[in-house]
């Protein structure tokens, strides 16, 4: 492998010092002179007609500066997919879930704003509340959205190959069911925003978001402003994991009220509001029928899935496709049939969350495959190796595995966990399990139909040549994209990471679709690399004119100019630089011409040096309906082995050890790759063992707190042995592809398979609480 200076290292993150000292600013930390505070009125009922909204008392409260409802906000529909724009800033005709937004208030302080909210009187006529799929799909059920009778928000039917025909060749056919539970993102920073509309009619919104671009477009559309008049800025973000990928009503309300009052408006979600807004993982009800030959060849899968979508669509249209398409790999599967139904219910809206759409499907199917391996008397690792795809394979749904280190991953966890010494040899109550997974490395298409570039990047060199400013609208949300993109820029330009200043998360810096579908490293990385190469070219061209060396005979690396065919005399340039910086101590010296000197020459001869890059994926596979969801320039993959102890008298599961191998193509930053792997696994562990958003009979979230919605603590999560696999992705910058989401895929099924190994029961409903496992063991004993 090629030697690099900046990438494939363990350099500390560019934002780490600011975050370690408390200097890093998040949206809630911002304030402005003359700022108002906003608060929202949200529906206390899950389904009701709005008969009347009376804001008189709220308006009269001293300190209140604005009260808005649908009358002020208008009736523009928005959402994530243009095909399902079914949201409105404020409800006009009816409310569809507890938490649906009805009005907002801006006041001189938060206390006043909240008091005013409590003074708004709404008359409702209660409607039947549909809290689950069965009641929403029942004959004669009331339509939550008039345009969608039957409450089917989306429906997908796909068949690749011929499922029925293929079954005829199979020796084992199994049907199993599986369901997860509605999840919450559990990010530590609740959403927050600050909007400022200035005297020139320019709107700026600072927000805790994963995509400044989508928020900018949505706000412009809803408020009827030109996109160019709306700027969205993302300060540091305390985690997103999906739910922060789309615009929210609070952001639009803040903008609206700032526009109306001419004053900055700040709004914050409480933790409860985070749960009410949700937009997190759906509950999926899967049924898998899988056919396998005696020799262990997987032949066919029919996957049926019902998704409990909540009240609106959000990312759900993508989710329903992913719940089918993401089983197309990493095993060779010639015949795959999928039927998906996303159902509206009177609950908060579900959307995207880490491993979008594929996590429950993967969990259920990998558990079924384990059962099949056992029926075949095959070792689960061997069974998987036998069916594994390789680099260059194309799935039945037309995903091109342009790189796939799946075999290396499986072998990595097998050897790393000492599988052979443990499988089948552990005492009762202890178990070991394996599973695999894969994920897209960036959605192949934007969420709205468009020819847009997915990422642009600009590099501007400072006039003294010392600084490299990188501008990108990409979203650092904790995953480390600022560092990765800084490293890519530094490597491609030939300087050190310290020379690069990363400016990101601002629509003024370009277009970037944001942090979702694991796209920043590959897509924004490409754009940044191009911008750096463009910058380098310009510097070398300027140098070429001065030194008479052709551009092709020069390069920049490690902060100095490399002359491939012998060093010319550059003393004139050095003297010039030194003269211009009389009094400075840090003058260039030594035998090499520094990047600084070269960049200075470029500035003097050409003006400000600006390099540009822009990326969109090339031609991708799939001509069928829905091919836009799941096709990606590259796919990451992973395997995990989990070891558990089950307390048979209580049903309590303890995760003792985890071994994880992930093919990220090429690790731009090894520490960050491990961090994404470990973080994914802990989220997977939480979903497997604890996490479930619950509702009472009236559709109110029953556990809207981090006390009763349990994400793992430091005592619940074991250390993970991480194995990084690098398959050198041809479509990735420096060969890199995703790690941020794919790593969660195998976690749940590996845990389930380990539990089975420990106590011989299969759990097909998450989370595996001690109660659920105890009941299953009790049931088994009765039989």
């Amino acid at each position, binding site marked *: 492998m090629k030697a690099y200076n900046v990438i494939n290292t363990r350099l500390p993150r560019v934002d780490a010092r600011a975050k370690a000292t408390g200097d*890093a600013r998040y949206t809630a930390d911002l304030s402005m002179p003359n700022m108002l505070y906003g608060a929202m009125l949200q529906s206390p009922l899950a389904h009701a007609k709005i008969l009347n909204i009376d804001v008189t008392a709220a308006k009269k409260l001293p300190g209140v500066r604005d009260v808005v409802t649908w009358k002020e906000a208008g009736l523009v529909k928005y959402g994530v997919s243009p095909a399902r724009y079914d949201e409105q800033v404020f409800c006009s005709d009816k409310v569809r879930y507890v938490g649906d937004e009805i009005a907002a208030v801006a006041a001189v302080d938060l206390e006043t704003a909240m008091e005013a909210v409590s003074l708004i009187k709404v008359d409702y006529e209660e409607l039947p509340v549909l809290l689950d799929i069965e009641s929403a799909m029942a004959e004669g059920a009331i339509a939550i959205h008039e345009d969608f009778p039957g409450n089917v928000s989306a429906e997908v039917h796909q068949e690749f190959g011929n499922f029925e025909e293929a079954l005829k060749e199979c020796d084992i056919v199994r049907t199993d069911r599986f369901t997860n539970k509605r999840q919450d993102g559990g990010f530590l920073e609740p959403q927050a925003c600050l909007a400022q509309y200035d005297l020139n009619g320019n709107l700026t919104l600072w927000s805790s978001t994963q995509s400044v671009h989508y928020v900018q477009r949505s706000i412009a559309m809803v408020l009827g402003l030109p996109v160019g008049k709306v700027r969205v800025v993302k300060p540091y*973000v305390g985690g997103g994991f999906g739910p922060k990928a789309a615009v929210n009503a609070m952001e639009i309300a803040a903008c609206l009220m700032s526009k109306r009052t001419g004053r900055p408006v700040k709004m914050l979600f409480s*933790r409860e509001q985070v749960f009410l807004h949700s937009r997190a993982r759906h509950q999926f009800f899967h049924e898998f029928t899988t056919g396998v030959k005696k020799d262990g060849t997987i032949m066919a899968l029919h996957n049926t899935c019902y998704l409990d979508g909540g009240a609106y669509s959000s990312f759900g249209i993508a989710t329903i496709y992913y719940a089918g398409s993401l089983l197309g790999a990493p095993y060779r599967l010639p015949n795959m049939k999928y039927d998906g139904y996303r159902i509206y219910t009177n609950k908060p809206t579900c959307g995207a969350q880490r491993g979008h759409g594929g996590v429950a499907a993967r969990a259920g199917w990998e558990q079924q495959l384990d059962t099949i391996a056992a029926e075949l008397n095959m070792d689960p690792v061997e069974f998987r190796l036998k069916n594994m795809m390789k680099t260059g394979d194309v799935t039945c749904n037309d995903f091109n595995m342009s790189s796939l280190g799946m075999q290396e991953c499986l072998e990595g966890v097998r050897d790393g966990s000492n599988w052979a010494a443990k499988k089948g040899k552990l005492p009762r109550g202890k178990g070991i399990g394996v599973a695999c997974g894969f994920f897209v490395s960036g959605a192949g298409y934007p969420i709205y139909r468009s020819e847009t570039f997915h990422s642009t990047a600009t590099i501007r060199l400072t006039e003294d040549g010392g600084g490299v400013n990188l501008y990108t609208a990409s979203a650092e949300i904790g995953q480390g994209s600022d560092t990765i993109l800084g490293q890519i820029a530094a490597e491609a330009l030939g300087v050190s990471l310290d020379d690069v200043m990363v400016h990101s998360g601002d629509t003024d810096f370009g277009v970037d679709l944001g942090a979702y579908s694991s796209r920043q490293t590959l897509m924004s990385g490409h754009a940044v690399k191009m911008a750096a190469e463009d910058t380098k070219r310009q510097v070398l061209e300027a140098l070429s004119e001065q030194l008479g060396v052709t551009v092709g005979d020069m390069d920049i690396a490690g902060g100095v100019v490399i002359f491939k065919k012998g060093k010319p005399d550059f003393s004139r340039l050095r003297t010039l630089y030194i003269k211009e910086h009389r009094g400075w101590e840090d003058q260039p010296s030594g035998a090499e011409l520094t990047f600084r000197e070269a960049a200075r020459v470029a500035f003097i001869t050409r003006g400000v040096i600006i390099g540009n890059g822009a990326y969109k994926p090339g031609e991708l596979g799939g001509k069928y309906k829905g091919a836009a969801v799941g096709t990606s320039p590259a796919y990451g993959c992973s395997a995990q082995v989990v070891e558990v102890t089950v307390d048979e008298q209580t049903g309590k599961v303890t995760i003792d050890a985890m071994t994880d191998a992930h093919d990220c193509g090429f690790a731009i930053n090894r520490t960050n790759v491990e961090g994404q792997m470990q973080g994914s696994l802990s989220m997977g562990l939480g979903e497997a063992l604890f996490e479930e958003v619950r509702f009472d009979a009236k559709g109110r979230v029953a556990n809207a707190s981090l006390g009763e919605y349990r994400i793992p603590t*430091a005592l619940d999560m074991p250390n993970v042995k991480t194995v990084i696999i690098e398959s050198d992705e041809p479509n990735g910058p420096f060969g890199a592809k995703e790690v941020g989401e794919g790593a969660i895929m195998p976690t749940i099924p590996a845990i389930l398979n380990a539990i089975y190994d420990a106590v011989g029961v299969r759990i097909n409903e998450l989370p595996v609480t001690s109660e659920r496992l105890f009941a299953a063991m009790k049931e088994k004993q009765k039989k």
Partner: protein
Amino acid sequence: MKKLITLTVNDTEYEVAVAPNRTLTQVLREDLNLLGTKEGCGVGDCGACTVVLDGKPVNSCLVLAVQADGSRIKTIEGVAHGDSLHPVQETFVELGAIQCGFCTPGMILSATSLLEKNPHPTEQEVRQALSGNLCRCTGYQKIVEAVQEASRRMKG
């Protein structure tokens, strides 16, 4: 009615007039402009608001500012000495213990408090000490490793 209270925060004494219903988190953030202390839940569930109150790490969202009258408080802003980071901050930076950073101030304060009480904790003791500070990003491993490495460095 507002009360006049004295807080010694990061070795600086402040006199502030506060209404009794304001939490220590609010007063640190809003009155003293010490924005490194975060609020993730407001009810003791997450630890993002951790500060060291009279030598002990606590959830500042569940402390009334008036209850802290006369106390010594350390916030994340008081952990480094000028430009030089505390060993725990150093190892958090170097070993990748920070992702989104929202839990970081609280984690670092819990960790430094632990090391003051118990300079050479076992892995389990570190995990115990951090068990009131939730982190959704890291899976805790690099945080635990950073605390242990800081403990090694502080030995010398």
